[in-house]
């Protein structure tokens, strides 16, 4: 609960208490350093060993968690349910994919300087927009700049027309569907329905080497941590409170003198940038980007991760993306046909039983415990929280 004088604290203290920072530091070390070590420094026979496949899989989860953070800023905090976050993820991914394609060199199936699909299509040379992506710096910047520019344009048009609620959800869904159809076209020069794949090296490191994959995993972990801190900074600032105010009462916001357009655009662009970075990290680890990432179902799943973990809490977004994707990997492996039913059931179950997501589970269990546990003579601890927290518990 925010103390009355929170704004007097230094920035880092405003984001988290020292105890919380210590916990984040421990968790980060565990995720970022220990997982790769369990792959490289532990014998495969050991119980603690993590296979190459598992490390790459976890790396993919981390990029999903980054994507979920942006989604939560949009939906959980500002109330904008975008069902097209896959667009920005894919745009970032394609930018990185183009870089990776150009560094296959002569190792491709056709031993040609051109990407294989262009050889196959009998294209004589690279289209004009391809060559700059040979540069790693350019591709990296583009993987943020392309999605954010696109989001700025689309967001401006949508929010200026005061499209909101379910209408915004529908047009973002239509957007991702339209782009999927566009990216299917061979004429676009981005590999058609096969997309971009068969990469060999990234920034000079060979993708076949496990050390490269571990590096990408560590990088994903660091980017997730940085994204988290950036999002936390936004949500703890006055700007964050304006965003929540837009979610809870846009009218009052307008008549308090704020123009919601700028704020919505800001958060839409930030979420797109985060999604772009996530996409750029996803592609080298997974080894392919194709139009299936633009399927509306993929974007809807992002919303489900956030809902399952807990809207309006950044931790919930991360947790939800990890839990749902972990479940997905396990189930699609064991019981492939059941996955969609399970996903649907999890979503419905959470919405009905845990509307605040998994992060609210401890609090709810506590509340249930307080209500049903045999009453001890005195329970002074329950009376301690500040009034807001207390009321909430009693209301739950």
């Amino acid at each position, binding site marked *: 609960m925010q103390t009355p004088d929170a704004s007097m604290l230094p920035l880092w203290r405003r984001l988290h208490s020292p105890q919380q920072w210590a916990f984040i530091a421990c968790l980060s070390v565990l995720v970022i350093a220990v997982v790769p070590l369990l792959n490289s420094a532990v014998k495969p026979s050991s119980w603690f060993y993590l296979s190459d496949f598992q490390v790459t899989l976890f790396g993919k989860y981390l990029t999903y968690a980054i994507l979920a953070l942006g989604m939560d800023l949009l939906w959980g905090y500002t109330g904008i349910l975008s069902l097209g976050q896959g667009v920005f993820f894919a745009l970032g991914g394609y930018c990185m994919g183009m870089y990776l394609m150009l560094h296959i060199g002569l190792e491709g199936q056709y031993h040609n300087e051109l990407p294989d699909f262009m050889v196959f299509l009998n294209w004589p040379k690279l289209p004009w927009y391809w060559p700059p992506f040979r540069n790693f710096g350019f591709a990296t910047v583009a993987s943020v700049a392309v999605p954010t520019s696109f989001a700025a344009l689309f967001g401006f048009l949508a929010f200026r027309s005061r499209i909101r609620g379910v209408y915004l959800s529908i047009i973002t869904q239509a957007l991702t569907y339209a782009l999927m159809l566009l990216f299917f076209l061979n004429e676009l020069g981005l590999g058609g329905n096969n997309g971009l794949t068969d990469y060999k090296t990234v920034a000079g490191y060979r993708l076949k080497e496990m050390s490269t994959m571990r590096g990408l995993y560590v990088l994903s972990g660091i980017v997730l941590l940085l994204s988290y801190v950036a999002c936390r900074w936004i949500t703890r600032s006055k700007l964050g409170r*304006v965003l929540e105010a837009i979610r809870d009462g846009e009218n009052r916001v307008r*008549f308090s*003198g704020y*123009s919601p357009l700028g704020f919505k655009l800001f958060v839409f662009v930030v979420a797109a940038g985060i999604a772009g970075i996530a996409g750029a990290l996803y592609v080298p680890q997974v080894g392919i980007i194709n139009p299936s990432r633009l399927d509306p179902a993929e974007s809807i799943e992002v919303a489900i991760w956030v809902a399952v973990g807990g809207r309006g809490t950044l931790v919930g977004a991360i947790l939800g993306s990890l839990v749902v994707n972990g479940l997905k990997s396990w189930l699609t492996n064991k019981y492939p046909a059941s996955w969609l039913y399970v996903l649907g059931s999890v979503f419905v179950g959470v919405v009905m039983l845990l509307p605040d997501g998994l992060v609210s589970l401890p609090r709810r269990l506590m509340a249930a415990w307080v209500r049903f546990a045999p009453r001890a003579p005195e329970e002074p601890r329950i009376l301690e929280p500040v009034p807001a927290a207390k009321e909430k518990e009693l209301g739950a």
Partner: protein
Amino acid sequence: MTRPVDEVEKLTPHESIIQLESCTVSFDGFKAMNNLTFYVEVGELRVVIGPNGAGKTTLIDVISGKVKPTHGRVIFAHDTDLSMLRDYEISNLGIGRKFQTPTTFEKHTVRENLELSLKGRRSVWSTLFSKLDAQDREKIDATLERVGLRDRAGWKAGLLSHGQKQWLEIGMLIMQDPKLLLLDEPVAGMSDEETAKTGDLIRSIAKDRSVMVVEHDMEFVRGLNSKVTVLHEGSILCEGSMDKVQNDPRVIEVYLGRDSAKGHA
């Protein structure tokens, strides 16, 4: 942006802070406001009454920019035409409005509600880097005191009682430091005690700014002891002191004698 506010400072007594010139608001042919000419003087406390559908809330909507007049002009201070401006721009000029049903940010604490309403820059970047200074905190504390919510500062606004929410919303308006305050039914759903407290609050607010109150509660209106405008079918029926208005035969007819009789009792 600040120019019209400076102009308000320059207004001399008996000049109007807000002036509606032959305003008509028509919703699919229904005239919620019919050729209305209306003004509030600078520093005045004005009460607007009228039966349901008289156009009272429409009047507030037109001034605050929620509804644009179909015809006519709305002039703030000397010559700022509000009908050309957006709702948030009008708010930044120094016109605050309270809604009929209390509208606060329910998931924010009372203190945060006031902080969000604090007068100041409202751009994305300035809010991202905004920090409260000692003066801001003092202002917030003073407002908490004034609206009687000091011991509720850390509460989520959604947990407040109906009356407290009304006060919080008035507090949010005080934080904006408006030149003109529009209050739509500020004592709706309040107990007698709360109503009395709200009356005191409004009178104290009206000391250093112009206030327009729309109300149904005749006892409350009488207590405010100010000029009253009676609206009926989107036009002014009668204007003057409460006594004069209550004895006007047209007003009695419109109200079917009920409220005026109650007022005399």
